[in-house]
C-alpha cells in the first residue's frame, strides 16, 4: 500500500503542503486535501516533561486527497511531498517507508481513502 510518512517533529507548519495541494486539486476557500494541526506552544507543568515546551505541527489528510494519482502515474511526486520545506514527508510503499523509523522523531503514516 502506498502512503506518506511524516516525521512530524520537524514539521514547521509552513503551509506549503496545504497550498500545494489546494492548487493541485483546485480547491476553494477553507477546502483542503491536507491540513496542518497545531498543538501549543505550551509549557508542561506536570509529568516527566515538566519545564519543556510542546509546539507541534502535524498534517492530516482530508477526504479530498487522492494521493496525487494523476501525478504519480506520470512519475511525479505528490505535490505536498514535493514541496515539503522541512523534508519531513516521504511518499512510497509503506513497507519500504517503515525502514526509516528510528525512534528519533515522532512519525505518522498518512494513507488516504481509496477512491
Amino acid at each position: 500500500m502506498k502512503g506518506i510518512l511524516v516525521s512530524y517533529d520537524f514539521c514547521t507548519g509552513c503551509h506549503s503542503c496545504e497550498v500545494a495541494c489546494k492548487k493541485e486539486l483546485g480547491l476553494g476557500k477553507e477546502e483542503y486535501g491536507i491540513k496542518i494541526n497545531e498543538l501549543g506552544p505550551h509549557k508542561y507543568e506536570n509529568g516527566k516533561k515538566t519545564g519543556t515546551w510542546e509546539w507541534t505541527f502535524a498534517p492530516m489528510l482530508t477526504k479530498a486527497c487522492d494521493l496525487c494519482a494523476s501525478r504519480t502515474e506520470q512519475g511525479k511526486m505528490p505535490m505536498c511531498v514535493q514541496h515539503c520545506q522541512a523534508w519531513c514527508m516521504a511518499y512510497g510503499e509503506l513497507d519500504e517507508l517503515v525502514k526509516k523509523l528510528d525512534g528519533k522523531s515522532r512519525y505518522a503514516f498518512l494513507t488516504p481513502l481509496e477512491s
Partner: protein
Amino acid sequence: MIIDYEEFENSIDPKAYHKGEWRWEEDGCTVTRTSHYSAPGCHDSCGLLAYTKDNKLVKVEGDPLDPAANGRLCMRCLDLVEAANNKDRLKYPLKRVGERGENKWERISWDEAGEMIKAAVKKLEDEGYGHESIFVANGTGRNTVWQVPLVAAALKTPNVGATNLSGQSCYAPRIFGTFAAMGDYLVTDVTQACEKRYSDPKWEVPDVLVVWGNEPLKSNADGFIGHWLLPAVQMGTKIISIDPVLTWWGARADYWLPIRPGTDEALALAWLNVLTQEDLVDHEFINYWCAYYDELKEHVAKFTPAWAAEISDVPEEDIIASARMYGSAPKGAIQWGLAFDTQVSAMEMCVTVTDLMAVCGNIDKPGTMKIIRNAFDVDAGESTSDIFCGSTFNKKLTAAVFGCEGMEFNGSVDSDAVNVAMESGEPYPIKMMWSQSSNALACMAFDAPRTYRAIKDSVEFCVYADPYMTPSAVAFADLVLPVSMSIERDSARTWWTPLRTMKKCTSYYEAKSDEEIVVWLGHLLNPEVFNRWPTAMDLVNDYIETALAITDENGNAVKPGFDLSFDLGADQRDAYDIHTKFRPIDSSKTAFDDLTESSCGYRYDEWNDTYEKYDKGMLRPDGGKGFNTPTGRIELISTVLPVWGIDKYPVHHENQQSVKWLNDPEYRKRYPLYCINGSRSYEFFHSEQRQMETMREFHPEPLVKMNPKTAEEYGLKEGDWVWMENECGRCMQKVTIFEGIKDYCLSAEHGWWFPEQEGAEPNLFGALDCNTNNLTHVYETGSHNIGAPRKTVCVRIYKVRPGDTMPGEQVTRLGGFRDYVNREY
C-alpha cells in the same frame, strides 16, 4: 530520519521532470524551468517550473532538480498564479488627476510619462537646484537592488537608498561589523554554496546552531532560505535560541534565552567572557588566524554572566550553560538576523558576534560560518550610482550631516539625512523623488506619520514604479509606472550563490521590467552613460559579464560593488580588468542565454564552494594567506573601527526608551510594555502579497502576540482589537494569546495594508491604522549612525472602541498624533 539527499536525487524521475531541458511543451502548456526573484518579492530565488498558456501563467510548481531549493517552494510562490493575474495589477502608466491622496488617475502612454519626467527635471534645473535634490528610493533586497541605483544614474543623483530606514538598520550593520573584524561576510553553512548540497562529501553537520534574533523559517532573509537548516536539524544539530519570543527553534532548543529586547550585546559580551575565562576557545585557530586575543579577553573580563543576567533578564546559569554548549561544540554556527541591526548597539553587536565565531574557530570550516561573496564576483549594488551619477557624487547625503566623524563606509544614502533635507531644506531641499518597488509608508519607514508629512510637504514631483497601486503611491505619486513581475522579465541575480537567471515567460499589458525601465529612463535623460546598454538585455548581459564596472582615465577598473577593502585602498585585484569571473560554457551564446539554456538557469562558482579560503590565499588582494584586514588576521579588537570613527572596544548601549523604562518608574507606569516590531509570517514578505486571496485566507489580519497574563490584566481576549500607543503615535492589531512571550513584551506584525479597502485618504488602504511604525521615531541611531531601535519601543495598550479615531484620519486629516497621545486613558 527522512532526509537522505542522494536517495532524494535518485528518486526524481528525469523524464517526468525533463532533466536538462529548460523549456518544453506539456498538457497544452509551455513549461519553463527558471528561478523566481520578485515581483512579488522575497530575498531568495527558488527554482520553479512555470506553466504558461496564451501569454498567461496558469500553474507553478517547484523544480526538484534545482539544487538551491530542491523544489520546495514556500506558500507564496505556490500562489504565484494569483499574484501575476491579480485584478489589482497596474496595466498602464497613470498620471494623477485629483489631489495627491485622492487616488484618481488617468491612463497615459510611456511617451507621455517620459515627457512629464523630463519636464520635472527641467523645472528643477531652471529653479537652480542640482540633481542631488532628487531622491531615489529603493526597497529591500529583491531583484531591484542592482537596477534601481541605475535610476539614480539616469537622474544623475548620488542619493539612492531606503526611505527613513534610520541607521541603515537592516542587514547592513551585520555586513559592516564582519567587514570591520575580518574583511568578508559570514553565513551559516548548510551546503548552499555547493551544487551537491547535503551529499557534498566536504560538508559536516553543525553540532550546535544558535538561532539569534530572527525566525529564518518565516523571514527567508538575506539570501538565506530558512528551511535549508532543517536537514541539519534532522541530522542531529542541537539548537540554542536567543529571542524574546518563542519560535519553532526555541520550542526545540536545549536552551531558549528569552532576553529583554535590545540586550543582545550584553549577552554576547557575557558569552565571550565565559569562553575566554573558561578557556573554551580554539587556541590553534586564534594563534594562526586571529589578532588581539589577549586584548579582547581583558576587555570582556568585566562583562560577567551575572552582569548580563541583570541586564538581559535571562538567568545567569542559563547564560553560562549555553555559552559552554556553544564553546564546547566542535562545529558551531550562528544564524544571525535582523534584530542585530534594529538596535542602537548594532555595530558593537555585529563585531562581538563575529568575535564569538572567530574565537571558537567557527570560520569557513564545514558546518560553521562560511565566508561568502557574490558568485563569480558579480557585485553591483547601491554604489553603482556613485560611479555613474557624475559631479553630484560629492553632495551625497551621508552621516556627515549629523557630524559623524571617520571615513564613510556606508555606500547607501543616510536616510535620516534625507529626512533632514526634506523637512528643513538643509543642506539642500529634496524636490523630486523616484520610488521603485518600495512601499515605505506601509512598511520600511520609521515614524510613518512623520514620513507622510515629510514627503508630502517637500517633494514637488514624485514617481512610483510598482506592480500594484500601493498606499505610498496614492499618498505621494504624481506618476505611477507599471512594473513587470518576475515571470515577465529577463533578468539575472547574484546575491551569494549560485548565479541565476529569470527567464521571461509572459508579458502583462504595458508593464515594463525594472531593467526596461532603467534603460528607457537612461536613454531619455542620460544617454552618454546609457548608450552602453542599447536594450534591457544588453544591460543584463553586461551585469553578468562586468557587474557594470567602468575603466577610469588611468585605465583602472572601477567596480561598483560593496567592497570595503577597495575603500581602504587595499584592493588591487584585477586592477585593469572590468570583467567578472563569469565565463560562458557555450561561447557562441550571450551570458544570459548561456546561463538560461546551457545550465538550466543557474551556475555555482568554485570560490564559494571552497572551505578555509584564508589558508588558500583566496581572501587577500595580494594573494597571500590570511584575511583581508590590515593585519591579515581576524582582528578581535578591530583596527578598522577607529578609522570609521567608532570605538574599538564594543560595549552594550540601551536605546532612549529603554533607559527611561529601566530608570524612571513614572515612564514605566505609563508605557509598561515592550512592543517587538516586525514579527514575520509565512504568508507575506514585508508589505507584499496582501492582494493574494489564498495568503489572506490563511492570514486575514495583523496579529499581536500577548502573554495570557498580560491579556488577563488588560481584560483582553483572543481576537480583540487592541491599540498600542506611545509618545510617537498609535496603531491597532488583533490580539492572539501566546504563552511563549514575556508578560512585559508584545510581538506585533509589520507591513500591513488592505488592498480591498478604500485607497483614497484618509484611509490609504488602511496602511496607517495597523502600522507599528507609528510607534517608532527617526534620528536615534547607534555608532556612526548605524543601527536603530525598531524592536525596542515601549507602549501601553487598551481595547479599540467603536468611534475611535483611526490613525489614517489622524495623520492625513488631523495633523498627526502630537495632540492626543499625551492624554490620559
